[in-house]
């Protein structure tokens, strides 16, 4: 095995990259498939010629996958083309609506051949990666880089194809699916084969191992990547398939089943049935399960009128399984497997809205997540070498790369979900364009998975502040920049979901700063803020979704006066908004205060700067939420919102539960903080001693505020009895203020010019940054090729500010 083999390997991936790139540019489905197939040979070549035996095993397994899955895809495409009678992809848009079986088979084949979960075919590509990283020569690193690029290209054109075919409305002529077509039959047979490979991936590997042993001689040892799935994961996982089938037979029962299936993990974790778990795993798993349960309940009301509900709940439960897995996973190998599961299921959830914008946003998200995921994988392999994949084994393992490079790789891989700068580019568009419950899942739950991983990497693998102070400081700076940029951009938004997206970015910045400070107060503040962000942001997205469902718009300029029509939603929004903005005595106040205090106590000049920035970002958050609350819920209702009603009780219930939790954690922060201090011990951080830090003091403050408020309120009611209370209409300019007297622009201060003078300054700031944004435009063009340009809604309202002033 000399360098000749290494060059062959390099040649293989370059070959793959070239043809994947050609495939990316094709507009016809047959040519796309042709180029893609030629490219796939490159991976096999690279695998077979890989330096270690594991790679060769991957290569041999890849041959088997290649044959079965390519035939499946090919026959499905032929069936499709013969029915639609055009090979042009853009003319086939939405064909999934009329030919559901064929397109499902095609999607099945594509997902399988990309090696995405639940298909274990991914193992073959991972093995190739593993062997390449393991040898660690410079040619190998080059190979890894090119292979990642090629795989990302592949994901791009394949998923673009799938989302155009399935997640788009169909406008072509009437076609009937010919179930007896021979090509379809062939596809069904090979789909069964693919399913078998997916189910029995290990056996294929065994077979491949045998072949390689014959060819190369000697014993072949494969890395042990995954362990047995716990019950916590398998229940929602198999439940997803069961609920999908149940929905086909008895649609009425499916909703109940979905609710029960999301409730099961919560109950299991509460009652301790989930087995012994470390505090940090229990904490995140429990709150993620709780959020998924509440959002699932809300979705039953929200999605009631949507068509493809079965698909939605399937991916929802699938995502729940992935999240539970992430919550309880002990090794990096497991973590990565569930991470992939989460990426694919959240991608399909984001697509549910089936608009051009949603497709673009979802694809951008997937591309970002996939490339980051591969880097994450490289980091795992490089960090662990032969030490197994336990988090703890990483510490002090002789890594292939220096700690700094590793930290950057992990930060990219995990930070993409944690919405860190500069990787949050996909966030605003996606949160804006998906359904509100999906955005709620992304913002409140998925972003925390990045934090779980980062906690493991930062404190256990890298040894925390004591182990690597410079790296931790770097992480804190990333958090600070994220936070400030998010807060500034948030002030400009007029779309409610987009505003919340930027808010989410800001709050994740807080969390990052808190945990990177590494002190007892900082880490507990960061973790507590992560919890508060989970509750508040979930709550806010649900409220915004309720408004969208009842009024049909998320644009703050078109809303107003909803507080009288949707009182429960208005109450929940106030709690969520003031909670996350940190108005005492709500929950965000305590956690933010802990982070400020930790920043200042840090004593370094960087800590001081963080202190100022966190406080300033907090003001920005408050300002943005005042705008949101005012524009949507107060003021006068425009004519379009005249007969809006409150949402059904099934949607109110999750909002109320979350509001109560926000208030509860505001008044009794020690409920969470006590548990967080046990988590800190697990992380090797000094636990927060609540007697040293007067968290209790802030509780007293909160209670006093409450007492004064209550006393004054009582006084108000008493005085209200004595004097007559009269309601009068509002006058402006000598006329009674009614929607038909004035245009809504006159009676309601739109979100566009709520803070014109401040926005103007921010606009000037963003003008300086414009070239950076333009640099990414060409990438976007490649990503979204073939999606017709709609009349572009304004990215943000900067343009319209310029008009008004």
């Amino acid at each position, binding site marked *: 095995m000399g360098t000749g083999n290494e060059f062959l390997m390099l040649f293989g991936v370059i070959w793959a990259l070239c043809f994947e790139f050609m495939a990316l540019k094709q507009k016809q489905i047959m040519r796309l498939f042709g180029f893609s197939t030629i490219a796939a040979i490159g991976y096999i070549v690279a695998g077979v010629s890989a330096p270690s035996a594991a790679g060769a095993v991957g290569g041999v397994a890849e041959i088997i996958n290649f044959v079965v899955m390519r035939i499946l895809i090919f026959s499905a495409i032929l069936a499709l083309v013969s029915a639609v009678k055009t090979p042009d992809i853009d003319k086939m848009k939405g064909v999934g609506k009329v030919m559901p079986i064929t397109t499902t088979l095609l999607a099945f084949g594509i997902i399988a051949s990309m090696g995405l979960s639940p298909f274990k075919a991914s193992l073959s590509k991972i093995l190739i990666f593993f062997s390449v990283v393991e040898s660690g020569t410079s040619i190998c690193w080059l190979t890894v880089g090119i292979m990642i690029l090629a795989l990302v290209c592949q994901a791009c054109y394949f998923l673009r194809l799938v989302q155009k075919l399935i997640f788009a409305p169909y406008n072509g002529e009437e076609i009937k699916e010919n179930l007896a077509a021979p090509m379809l039959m062939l596809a069904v047979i090979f789909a069964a084969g693919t399913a078998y490979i997916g189910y029995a991936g290990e056996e294929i590997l065994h077979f491949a191992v045998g072949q390689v042993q014959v060819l190369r001689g000697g014993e072949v040892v494969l890395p042990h990547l995954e362990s047995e799935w716990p019950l916590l994961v398998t229940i929602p996982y198999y439940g997803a398939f069961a609920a999908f089938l149940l929905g086909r037979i008895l649609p009425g029962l499916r909703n109940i089943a979905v609710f029960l299936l999301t409730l099961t993990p919560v109950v299991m974790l509460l009652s301790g049935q989930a087995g012994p778990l470390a505090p940090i795993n229990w904490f995140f798993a429990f709150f993620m399960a709780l959020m998924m349960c509440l959002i699932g309940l809300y979705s039953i009301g929200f999605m009631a009128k949507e068509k493809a509900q079965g698909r939605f709940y399937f991916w929802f439960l699938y995502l729940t399984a992935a999240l539970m897995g992430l919550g309880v996973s002990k090794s990096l190998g497991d973590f990565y497997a569930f991470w992939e599961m989460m990426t694919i299921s959240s991608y399909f959830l984001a697509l549910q809205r089936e608009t051009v914008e949603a497709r673009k946003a979802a694809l951008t998200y997937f591309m970002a997540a996939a490339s980051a995921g591969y880097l994450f994988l490289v980091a795992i392999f490089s960090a662990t070498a032969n030490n197994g994949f336990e988090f703890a084994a990483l510490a002090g393992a002789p890594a292939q790369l220096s700690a700094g490079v590793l930290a950057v790789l992990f930060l990219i891989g995990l930070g993409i979900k944690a919405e860190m700068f500069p990787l949050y580019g996909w966030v605003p568009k996606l949160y804006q364009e998906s359904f509100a419950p999906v955005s709620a899942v992304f913002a409140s739950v998925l972003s925390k998975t990045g934090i779980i991983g980062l906690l493991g990497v930062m404190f256990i693998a890298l040894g925390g502040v004591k182990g690597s102070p410079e790296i931790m400081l770097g992480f804190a700076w990333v958090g600070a920049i994220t936070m400030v940029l998010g807060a500034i951009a948030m002030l400009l938004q007029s779309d409610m979901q987009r505003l919340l997206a930027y808010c989410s970015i800001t709050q994740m910045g807080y969390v990052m700063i808190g945990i990177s400070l590494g002190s007892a107060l900082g880490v507990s503040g960061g973790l507590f803020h992560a919890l508060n962000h989970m509750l508040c942001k979930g709550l806010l997205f649900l409220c915004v979704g309720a408004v969208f469902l009842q009024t049909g718009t998320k644009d703050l300029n078109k809303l107003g006066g909803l507080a009288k029509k949707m009182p429960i939603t208005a109450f929940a929004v106030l709690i969520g908004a003031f909670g996350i903005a940190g108005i005492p005595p709500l929950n965000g106040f305590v956690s933010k*205060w802990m982070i400020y205090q930790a920043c200042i106590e840090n004593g370094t000049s960087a800590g001081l700067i963080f202190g100022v920035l966190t406080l300033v970002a907090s003001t920005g958050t408050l*300002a943005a939420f005042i705008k949101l609350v005012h524009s949507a819920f107060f*003021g006068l*209702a425009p004519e379009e919102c005249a007969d809006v009603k409150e949402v059904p009780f099934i949607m109110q219930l999750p909002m109320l539960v979350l509001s109560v939790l926000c208030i509860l954690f505001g008044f009794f922060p020690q409920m969470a903080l006590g548990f967080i201090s046990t988590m800190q011990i697990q992380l090797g951080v000094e636990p927060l001693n609540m007697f040293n830090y007067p968290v209790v003091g802030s509780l007293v*403050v909160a209670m006093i505020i409450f007492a004064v408020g209550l006393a004054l309120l009582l006084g108000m009611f008493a005085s209200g009895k004595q*004097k007559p209370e009269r309601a009068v209409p509002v006058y402006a300019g000598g006329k009674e203020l009614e929607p038909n007297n004035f245009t809504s622009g006159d009676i309601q201060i739109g979100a566009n010019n709520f803070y014109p003078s401040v926005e103007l300054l921010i606009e000037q700031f963003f003008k300086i940054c414009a070239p950076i944004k333009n640099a990414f435009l060409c990438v976007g063009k490649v990503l979204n090729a073939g999606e017709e340009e709609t009349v572009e809604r304004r990215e943000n309202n900067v343009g319209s500010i310029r008009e008004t002033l």
Partner: protein
Amino acid sequence: MLEVLEKLFNLFVFPGFLFIAFIGLWFVGIHRKIVARIQRRMGPPINQPFKDFAKLMIKENITPETASKGLFSFAPYITIIGITVGMMFLPIINSQAPIDMAGAFLVLLYLITTAAVGVMVAGSSSSSPYAAVGASREMALVIAYDISLIIVFLSIAIKASLVGAGGSDILSFSMKSIVEAQSGVPFILDWTLWPAFLAFLMIIPANLGLAPFDVVEAETEIVEGPMIEYAGSKLALMQLGAAMKSFFICSVVVVFFFPNGLVSADCGLGGAVINTIWHIVKAWLVYLVAGTLVSASFGRRRVDQVVKFYLTVPLVLSLISLLLVVFF
């Protein structure tokens, strides 16, 4: 039990609600008189705010039909609660405030914002476009001056921790540590903090809604802004909140820059009274310089001018102070 009663006394009587309300209304009365004399008018008697308050309390309560009633009624209380609880953190008689804790100045910062939130909620919930404009201006103003205010607070806290580094039993960044750090030389005599002091004085008119930064109420443009729909007892409470704020914010300046009492803290009730009066006099002096004289001398600026002003002059001043404190 006694402790609870003491805290309740602190909260409702001294230095809480009644005390601030009384002094605050007086401050407003004196302010109006002085402004009138400067403008060659007679002006109302000094106790006019008390009469106004009493009169409004017995007037009819009028609520706009389209307002969100609960918040419309609750909004004045937000300001009053914020200020009353904020006052609990300010040591007046000696260095011990009724409530104190590590990082108390951060809570104070929040409570100052909370007082402004009351005005915003009032404007927002009353459904009048003028009130909404007022609310949005109030928030824009808060964004503009809050950054400088944060930096001023931080400079003070860091200075205090540098001076008082010896005493280990003082909670870090508590109000007590800030006051005791000044027992030798008050911060007003420390040249590194002069820019911060100036910046704080510049913030006062905007915080209190006084000319030249009274863009929130702006009678001639948006007719009292957030207060436009308020009447009767609710208007009385809004005005009371504004009056309380004037004493509160000046007290913060006093505590941060020259908190030392005339007599030692152990002089019993008499000493306490003297120190309290001394504190009120100092607070009034701050109000006279930064509020009354400034507002009598200048006309109102536009909103964008105000925002630009606060994001340049006080911001730069406070930053200079922070750098000086850290490096000298």
